[in-house]
């Protein structure tokens, strides 16, 4: 009993040691991986450009110039103009804001919902576990993209609905990861010790279980951003996502499709941007995984 208490008392310290170790490992992994560094730098540029779009974009995203429709890349319009004469570069910069907002919002929602479902199922067990896992099974009964299309098509293509769709898209896998993690932690001595010294259930969950499931959550959440970006763009491409005239990468690609025979740059640039962003997220996510959760490597 005393022994268990000592272990619990030492736990936060031990965790601090471990997290600084994880940070060190992350730094070492990043330093040793030039591709991941390049990915992180690229993401930083996209994030800065998206958040300062009104300052860095050369034109307003909806400024039309009908005399310059479908102009190829030039010194005035670095990436050309679209079918309404709008500057493609400016729309891509403003589009980054929308695409990243949806992907990050959807992933954050998925992390919250998935973690909650996984914690409830794993910690309480019994009928609650059965119920949450059946719910997850139902979400797994469709390909994720299908569920996202269905939700957005039925609820309407607003930003909030897109985030809800991506939340539902990314939550099931996280729920299973968190549940598995909680099930493996529950019988461990430090949890038993915490219970033995009278820790309340919320304290056991939030002070002991959640911090110890963070590594797989962070790793999966980072890699989920890539999936969410691709899905958000796919929804825009299929016409059920962000609606014109709002600039969004998938919707821009979809609109450019009609003119791709004569203005192939309209489908090339948005696609390159989606690809590079997803690639960078995957590179950073892989590095995080190697540093924080080597078992998943």
């Amino acid at each position, binding site marked *: 009993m005393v022994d268990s208490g000592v272990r619990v008392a030492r736990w936060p310290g031990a965790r601090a040691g471990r997290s600084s170790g994880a940070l060190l490992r992350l730094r070492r992994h990043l330093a040793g991986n030039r591709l991941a560094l390049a990915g992180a730098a690229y993401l930083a540029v996209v994030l800065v450009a998206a958040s300062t779009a009104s300052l860095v974009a050369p034109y307003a995203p909806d400024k039309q110039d009908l005399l310059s429709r479908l102009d190829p890349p030039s010194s005035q319009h670095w990436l050309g103009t679209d079918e309404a004469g709008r500057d493609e570069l400016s729309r891509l910069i403003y589009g980054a804001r929308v695409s990243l907002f949806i992907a990050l919002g959807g992933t954050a929602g998925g992390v919250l919902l998935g973690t909650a479902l996984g914690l409830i199922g794993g910690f309480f067990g019994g009928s609650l576990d059965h119920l949450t896992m059946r719910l997850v099974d*139902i979400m797994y009964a*469709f390909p994720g993209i299908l569920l996202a299309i*269905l*939700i957005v*098509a*039925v609820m309407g293509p607003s930003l909030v609905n897109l985030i809800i769709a991506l939340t539902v898209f990314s939550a099931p896998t996280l729920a299973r990861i968190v549940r598995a993690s909680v099930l493996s932690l529950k019988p461990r001595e430090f949890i038993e010790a915490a219970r033995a010294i009278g820790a309340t259930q919320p304290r056991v969950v939030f002070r002991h279980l959640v911090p110890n499931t963070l590594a797989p959550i962070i790793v999966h959440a980072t890699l989920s951003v890539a999936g969410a970006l691709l899905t958000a763009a796919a929804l825009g491409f*299929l016409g059920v996502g962000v609606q014109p005239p709002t600039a969004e990468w998938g919707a821009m690609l979809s609109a450019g499709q009609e003119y791709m025979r004569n203005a*192939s740059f309209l489908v090339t640039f948005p*696609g390159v941007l989606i690809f590079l962003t997803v*690639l960078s997220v995957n590179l950073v996510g892989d590095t995080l995984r190697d540093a924080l959760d080597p078992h998943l490597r």
Partner: protein
Amino acid sequence: MWSYFLRRLLLSVPTVLGAVTLVFFVMRVVPGDPVALLIPPDTPGPSTAAVAARIRHEFGFDRPLYEQYAVYLRQMASGDFGRSIRQNTLVSADLGFRVPNTLELGIPAFVLSVVLGIVLGTVSAVRRGTWMDGAAMASALFGVSVPDFWLALMLILALALWVPLLPPSGWGGPAYTGAGLRHLILPAVVLAFGSAGALARYTRSSMLEVINHDYVRTARAKGLRESAVILRHVLRTSLPTIITLLGLGFGRVLGGTVIVETVFGWPGVGRYLVSGINGRDYPVVQATVLLVAVSFVMANLLTDLTLAYVDPRIKYQ
């Protein structure tokens, strides 16, 4: 084995039922009238409202929700999927035409992705740290990062518009005909590509776990050829993972058909579903979702059963 099979089969029934119930209610409780999409209320003509009311009655939309649900379950159980609201065709007949088309696209894509994924992953694990590992993993990373709809457009641009080698879209008939095969190549390659990338990454990591075990080192130490070590010791031990990957690959290909069929104008189930969702064609969406959910759940069941067969520990857990 039989009791395990029956237990798993029974467990999959509530999952499928839950999925179709969810879709039924989600489609109906959210505002939006499929008949209004078919005949907008401002359509000129004196009998617009009467026609809309007649269609609503014909499809049972004027009945209480629980009655509609009971009718829907009864119809599904008897294999009657009703009529499409927009096309007025029998949904079962539409699916009868489209399912073979999706299989014609999905099966080659699935086989291609599995072969490509497992070969790339195995080469990468066996030749870890060499240029082959780097090239294989770079291809896999490209596969999981490239949007399939963009890859499709780029391939159409390059191989159908700039260098007209293949048709840009459409279905050219059964795959054993020349035209059918030419129409199949681009969509099948796009569908296989992303899935192969993910499979290659999983295969590599699962093989790396096995490759460092003592018994593999022992096999090498006793002088076995490398191919025998990989085939008889490493791949055999990785079999459960590879079976899981096959199930995963099926799911990815099935999900991918929604996008690929739409981009390439392929008359399959995925495109039918997207058009049904956009037109709020309830019977089309419900029947297609049922079909997809049953295929998905059955694929998972088959995966689990095969796993239990090759690794008997699983069924006793």
